[in-house]
């Protein structure tokens, strides 16, 4: 493992970059941060200074701690969403590839229909039904990503179903569940890891867009997208909250995308050709 990391600088960099941000988000309550909800009216709209390293927002709240807690909101929402989508979409793709026939055709057609909606629009539609809040955003992103995972998993799964070892397993009388769990799934782990990382990167942007539009986390929850939309109104007085929140979204999304990209090279060079 260490040897791999030493050889692959890009992967190492991506891993450290992502781990740092995730650690910050996880450890937020134990860090010696300002209270992200506390409004100090005499210190509104301050530029970065010794007390508030990234300045304060229009209500005098500390921007740094709101960003770190914003990371938490963003990660909790998107990791939940991607996990749900992976479970639903991955399961559908796996079963479709394994069962083939009418099940495959019907289920993948349904996925095509979901796939026909522009991503953000479908997410907005789901939120219109469920009402705007962080959980609706998570479900919306999960719904949008389910067909994507189904397609991504089905392709490689079909290839694996054709291999001799699956045929061999079937020949010695292994059950369907056994073949799926012990032969298909382990061989798909690298595909899943790569795609989950890249889709998480995209999900972070979708979540930020939704909360920017007021359809995700609601005030006063610390949320990166909300910080941007609130900061926008005070841009000429102080661009800091909007600028830093934007960098935070960019770093988080960039980190996961780079990680997925580097993992793809590392785990399976054939994946690149298959695309």
């Amino acid at each position, binding site marked *: 493992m260490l040897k791999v990391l030493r050889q692959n600088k*890009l992967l190492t960099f991506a891993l450290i970059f992502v781990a740092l941000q995730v650690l910050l988000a996880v450890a937020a309550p134990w860090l010696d941060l300002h209270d992200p909800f506390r409004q100090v009216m005499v210190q509104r709209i301050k530029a970065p200074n010794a007390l508030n390293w990234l300045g304060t927002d229009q209500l005098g709240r500390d921007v740094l701690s709101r960003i770190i807690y914003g990371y938490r909101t963003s990660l909790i929402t998107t990791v939940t969403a991607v996990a749900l989508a992976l479970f639903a979409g991955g399961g559908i793709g796996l079963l479709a590839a394994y069962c083939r026939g009418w099940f495959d055709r019907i289920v993948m*057609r*349904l996925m*095509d*229909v*979901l796939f*026909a*909606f*522009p*991503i*953000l*629009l479908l997410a*907005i*539609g789901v*939120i*219109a*039904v*469920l009402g*705007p809040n962080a959980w609706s955003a998570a479900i919306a992103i999960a719904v949008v990503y389910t067909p994507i995972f189904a397609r991504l998993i089905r392709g490689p799964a079909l290839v694996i179903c054709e291999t001799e070892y699956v045929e061999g397993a079937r020949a010695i009388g292994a059950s369907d569940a056994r073949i799926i769990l012990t032969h298909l799934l382990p061989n798909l782990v690298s595909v899943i890891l790569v795609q989950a990382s890249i889709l998480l*990167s995209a999900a972070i*942007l979708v979540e*930020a*867009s939704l909360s*920017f*539009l*007021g*359809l995700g986390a609601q005030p006063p929850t610390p949320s990166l997208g909300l910080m*941007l939309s609130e*900061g*926008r109104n005070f*841009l*000429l007085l102080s*661009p800091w909250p*909007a*600028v830093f*929140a*934007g960098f935070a*979204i*960019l770093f988080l*999304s*960039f980190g996961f*995308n*780079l990680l997925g*990209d580097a993992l793809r090279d590392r785990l399976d060079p054939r994946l690149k050709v298959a695309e």
Partner: protein
Amino acid sequence: MTPRFLIGRLIDLGFVLFGVSVIVFLMIRLIPGDAVAIMLGANTEITPDRIAELRGRLGLDQPLLMQYGNWLWGVLHGNLGTSIWTGRPVLGEIAAALWPTIELTALSVLFGAGLSIPIGAFMAQARGRGAEVAVRVGAIAGLTIPSFWLGIVSIFLVAKLLPGVSALGYVPFSQDPLGNLQRMVLPVFALSLPMLANLSRLVRSATLDALGQDYTRTARAKGASRRRVVYVHALRNALIPFVTSVGVSVGYLLGGAIVVEQVFAIPGLGRLVLGAIAERNYPLIQATILVITATFVLVNFVVDLLYAAIDPRVTN
């Protein structure tokens, strides 16, 4: 293009449009709780009379299949429903908001796709480890910069550096062509950057692929210059996967336009649908989603046909 291929595509198209219509139709019916009370709650006092009146007006008191049939019949005849607040057909409101969104999206496709070809071809000539890393990091950065943030920062910079220039809002092209284009510059840039990054990278790798093929070697052998081989022989074949990607990107742009319109105060479909969500005007939300999605589906249908026309191997 064989008739068989065309018929197959048309059946696919019909199926997807049918599926989309069912999902959009079900939207109101999936609202948890009493949908009618929720809708009314946005703007007025809820009374049993009003609930019954609106339920009747929306046809929610009929059997589900009949509701769908009536709704689809209306949609096919250009009746997308009426606003629950004004009682006017939503089609009028959509038509008014359609043009800014179409202009923004079309200009972004032109800008993103147009610029990605020379950039990608140029990048294909840069090889070696340093260039590889730069291309990769640049492409990922382009994909992951939030467009609305880019928009906000660019508005801020224009306000600071060019105080006289108006970057916000929208004027119709027919009224003030220059003012229209001037206000489109920043939104188009913000919206198309991820697409530009994605497509440039695609053009680059497809060009590199094409450069490894026998026909490029033949072209070099018969004396074509290296530049001519890249831009004429390799690039033309690299465009085949490019066309599909542009089609898929349109969906991204139509979604992204909703956010960018909000940033730049452009009165398009995005603003319309967000306003409709705020006042829980579900017929308007449904109709807008239906119109945008149908547009996207049709664009991709055309792209599929184009793809088959460019590359005869597809139809076989």
